[in-house]
């Protein structure tokens, strides 16, 4: 699940950047994509990608925090418990 989210965030970040450039720099992006990604299509995709991108980014951040942050809290808790036990 984590790996899938990390991979999708990377993919969506790339797509979000490319479609954004397809709007503002269409004179470069459209020929580079052989005419497929024109300004209108870029803008449509860009607007569709916004919500999935934010959701996946939030999941990505959550996973990153739980992986590194939670064990610390657990350790701290266990030390306090250990002191109480003494």
């Amino acid at each position, binding site marked *: 699940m984590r790996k899938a989210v990390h991979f999708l965030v990377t993919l969506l970040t790339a797509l979000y950047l490319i479609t954004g450039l397809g*709007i*503002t720099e*269409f*004179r470069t992006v459209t020929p580079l994509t052989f005419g497929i990604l*024109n*300004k*209108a*299509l870029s*803008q*449509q995709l860009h607007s569709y990608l916004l919500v999935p991108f934010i959701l996946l980014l939030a999941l990505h951040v959550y996973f990153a925090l739980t992986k590194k942050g939670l064990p610390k809290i657990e350790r701290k808790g266990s030390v306090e418990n250990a002191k109480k036990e003494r």
Partner: protein
Amino acid sequence: MRSVLSGSNFVFLLVLAVLFLPGCTGQSSGVKSLNPSEIRNYQGKDLSSVNDFRENSIKGSQYIDVSNYHLEVSGLVDKPRNYSYSEVLAHQKYSKVVTLDCVEGWSVTILWEGVLMKDLLEEAGAKPEANTVIFYAYDGYSTTLPLDYIRNNDILLAYKMNNVTLPPERGFPFQVVAEDKWGYKWAKWITKIELGNNPNFKGYWESRGYNQNGDLNGSKFGN
């Protein structure tokens, strides 16, 4: 000091002053007026700058030689016209503050000055079956507007913005001021205005996915 202002020297200085004073105060007929600078406030409204636009035309800025320029009005009209730049400017001029909203997300509020599009169309005499106005630009761009929209909304064909002549990068000699429409309806560098009877005729961006009506309160995409 006394020697300089005394006698014939004083008279000589007086004559010089009489001769050159008008030149110093700008009263001479030989003084040329410079181009006016753009205004940034009009009747209490703050205006954007001519430089606040983002250049997003299909082929970059176009530079039109006005001495060879002609504006063609043709299609479903009784009397096709071919105006020179000065002939268009000879029409009654109008001005109004209108905001251009671009689909990219930016907008500019400008005091536009130009001629009424419907005045040009009336001179050409639109045929009863005409319902669509197609604008063609120097760079190959095209877009359409409904004829009724132009008649009912006093749409301008602008040649000045913020009191200065349209710069080449802003659409000199003429730009459509399609108020309440997205920026892709505001065609620049207009060379031809054609009346047709196909309301579904698609211009450059319309044929690539942008909405045919281009209404600000409507959808940006699709039909």
